[in-house]
């Protein structure tokens, strides 16, 4: 590897050897310094590979990895003849990588020319089909145009073309194919509402679908939910994804991603029973978790209340996960949620908790922990109170009887107040309380 960074050879070897399944060698992300860009990129194919490489280049702080990623992105874009991504890569490289990676306008122009020619050819063909009114040919014509646009990076036109095929779909297979295309383009465009839409469309077709396609749809739906911040739904979808997915959907998502996303979302949003039944005991999902043993450890630690080590694992995974194109914006929220859940679960079984012990279990300082607890108590997520003097957390159970009395008296007061106001207003209306009259028309005594 020509990446100038410390690679723990043993770890890399273990990782590449110990994992089965899939033609690609899947590297579990270890840490930013140790991110194996090539291996990471190898998990994906198609446009998303380039997009992800560019993303990594943008966000990663280490220059060497940046350059490596950009180099790969450039090569890939050039090979795919995708001028949009090529220009983007070249811009970011900024001549840092030597003469071969400079902006090659000649190449861009020739590619564009060829693309124009092909486009014209396709369009004439399509027009021909349209005059002939043969549904199947028209559909295929639009499909080809859509593919063409997609390959050259013109995503919105691709989207439109794919949508147009809808009218010419005759069998459910056509419909599913159309939905898959649209989903792919929508994910790249970032329009996740469409993704959800078309996933449900595809799932509603009367024929039974191929297991791989079902898995793909679930994964896509999970992704859409994740991006729209519906973590619980996302977790459910990811957990339902069958192992048939394998690496068949590498133009969108890798199986490791399914595992990571699913596990994190589940940890952040499920309660204990759901966690056990849907994640830990889920045989299907276990296949995915095997691909990322760290995450599997994480989940088990959380369930077994080893919060310290669980949070440690999370911290270790964090730098690499930040480089993931879909997970990055949500990582902060997810981590916070998981941490809060851990704290809440920790305090649940006890009447009193010594804050010092708790702080060492969570590996943070007592004052920070106290602040976090205070915030959680104010949000009513923990029923307890803090004895700041002795640094103890006492569980507090509301006195039902007193609370009932208080509420009853308060309701009585509110009732009285509201009824009196209402009677007054009724009286006002009865006298036709119309202010238009009183400023001048009526002569008052005062």
């Amino acid at each position, binding site marked *: 590897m020509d990446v100038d960074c410390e690679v723990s050879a043993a770890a890399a070897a273990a990782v590449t050897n110990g994992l089965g399944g899939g033609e690609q060698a899947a590297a579990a992300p270890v840490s930013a310094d140790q991110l194996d860009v090539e291996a990471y990129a190898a998990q994906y194919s198609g446009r998303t590979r380039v997009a992800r490489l560019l993303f990594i280049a943008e966000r990663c702080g280490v220059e060497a990895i940046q350059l490596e990623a950009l180099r790969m992105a450039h090569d890939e874009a050039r090979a795919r003849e995708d001028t949009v991504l090529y220009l983007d890569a070249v811009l970011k490289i900024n001549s840092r990588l030597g003469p071969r990676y400079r902006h090659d306008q000649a190449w861009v122009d020739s590619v564009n020319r060829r693309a124009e020619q092909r486009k014209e050819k396709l369009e004439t063909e399509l027009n021909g089909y349209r005059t002939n009114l043969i549904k199947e040919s028209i559909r295929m014509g639009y499909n080809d145009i859509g593919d063409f646009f997609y390959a050259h990076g013109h995503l919105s036109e691709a989207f439109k073309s794919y949508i147009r095929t809808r009218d010419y779909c005759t069998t459910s297979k056509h419909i599913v194919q159309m939905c898959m295309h649209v989903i792919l383009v929508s994910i790249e465009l970032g329009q996740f509402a469409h993704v959800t839409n078309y996933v449900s469309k595809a799932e509603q077709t009367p024929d039974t679908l191929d297991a791989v396609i079902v898995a793909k749809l679930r994964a896509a739906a999970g992704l859409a939910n994740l991006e729209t911040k519906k973590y619980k739904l996302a977790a459910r979808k990811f957990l339902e994804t069958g192992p048939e997915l394998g690496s068949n959907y590498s133009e969108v998502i890798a199986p490791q991603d399914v595992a990571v996303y699913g596990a994190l979302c589940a940890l952040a949003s499920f309660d204990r029973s759901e966690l056990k039944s849907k994640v830990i005991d889920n045989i299907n999902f276990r296949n995915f978790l095997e691909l990322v043993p760290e995450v599997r450890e994480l989940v088990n630690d959380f369930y077994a209340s080893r919060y310290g080590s669980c949070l440690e694992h999370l911290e270790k995974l964090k730098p690499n996960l930040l480089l993931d194109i879909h997970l990055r914006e949500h990582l902060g929220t997810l981590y916070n949620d998981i941490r809060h859940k851990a704290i809440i679960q920790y305090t649940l079984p006890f009447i009193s908790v010594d804050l010092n012990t708790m702080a060492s279990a969570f590996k943070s300082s007592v004052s920070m922990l106290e602040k976090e607890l*205070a915030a959680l*108590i*104010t949000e009513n997520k923990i029923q307890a*109170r*803090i*004895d*700041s*003097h*002795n640094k103890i957390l*006492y569980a507090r159970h509301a*006195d039902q*009887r*007193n609370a009932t*009395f208080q509420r*009853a*008296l308060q309701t*009585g*007061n509110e*009732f*009285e*107040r509201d*009824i*009196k*106001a*209402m*009677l*007054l*207003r*009724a*009286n*006002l*209306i009865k*006298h036709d*309380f*119309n*202010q*238009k009259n*009183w400023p001048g028309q*009526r*002569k*008052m*005594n*005062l």
Partner: protein
Amino acid sequence: TPLGRSRAHKSTIRRSSRPVSSPPTRRKAASRTAPDQTPESEPSSKGKAPSAAAAAAMESVEALVAHIQGLSGSADELAQLHGLLKQADGDALRAHSAGLLPFLSHLHPGAHSLGYLYLLDSFVSSSANLRAHAGGDLLVTVADFLTSCSADQIRMAPDKFLNVCRVLKNEVMQLNAPIRGIAPLRAAVRKIQTSSEQLTPLHAEYLMLCLLAKQYKAGLSVLEDDIFEVDQPKDLFLYCYYGAMIYIGLKKFRKALELLHNAVTAPMSSLNAITVEAYKKYVLVSLIQSGQVPSFPKYTSSTAQRNLKNHTQIYVDLSTCYGTGSYSDLETFIQSNAEAFQTDNNFGLVKQVLSSMYKRNIQRLTQTYLTLSLEDIASSVQLNTPKEAEMHVLRMIEDGEIHATINQKDGMVSFNEDPEQYKSSEMVEHIDSSIQRLMALSKKLTSIDQNISCDHAFLMKVQSGRERARFDYDDFDSVPHKYF
């Protein structure tokens, strides 16, 4: 004779209200020598008359006085007397009002209230007279009259009564001695009310005097009655506004809030200045009382909902600033807008809002902590020193706003639960009386509902609704709500 004009002169019809014992339209006609009028009995001529005309005038007045004395016995006589007085009332009496004062001494305010009232009214209606007798016995006379008049009699001529009261109020204001007007006006309010639930124009006047004289407790007695009958819009608004100010002065913020709420949510078709001012205070008092300003309930008039906030923009901004919970931000905001608050005379309230922010933050701490050091309290509430924190906590404990104990040795405060166990006999009595009150209120509500259901206009609406709807009768349950 100068008094011989017998005109049927219809004065401006002063309708004060409908539910109040409706005063019949007063026709002012001259009295005396019209042949179709009831002949007066023995004119007793006592009194000095500087000129012949005046003498004749005096005579007629004397005659009137004699009538008053004679006819103030039973209800029939009063009715007759009232007719006479109405005829006498007018330019006749008015033109010679200056000379009326001595006659008053012949009459007893309690027994001859109606007559007394007429004479007094025409006397005080002329500003010349007032100026001539300013500050003297006139005030005493009027005050005496108000305290000792008979309620039934004066209710027959409420407009005159109100006029006299207004004059009294103006006089005491001019003399800068509002406190002199309090006792008489309070008596007057009680006398002119037909029921303790009725609002009269006098309420607002009375409360204003109490405010000016800073006699808040005096205002309480009038405020404690719940008002259900209102006739004039302006009365209600002024009443609510002044009443709320009195409650604010007594620091009874909850009751102040009720009154201001009524002022803000009353039906209105156009905004008036009183409501705008009332809303400003409403924002401030709700911040003090509960830390937030509730949104308009849906029965608020659309005029109010749309326009109130435009006129009171800094107050709205103040409440958003308060919501952030930062003392220093609030302080800077208040400083920068101090002038605006001063012009509205709300600066005192605004300062109370500021100090209530500390209270609210400290109260929030009681929910989270069992014990907390004074330094931590100071830092989380943004006070400067633990000493200040201690002072605040101490004051709140004394006011009963939190339950806590301060341990000075350790510099710790322990927050306790509310010790109220709801087991004491006082509490039981309190609950019992609340229940009784609410049951009475409920009964009242049901009876009003029944009345409306029998109301002609309502039935007409239901009828037309029935023709339009044509579906099922369950729809009609929704109709009554339109009236509330």
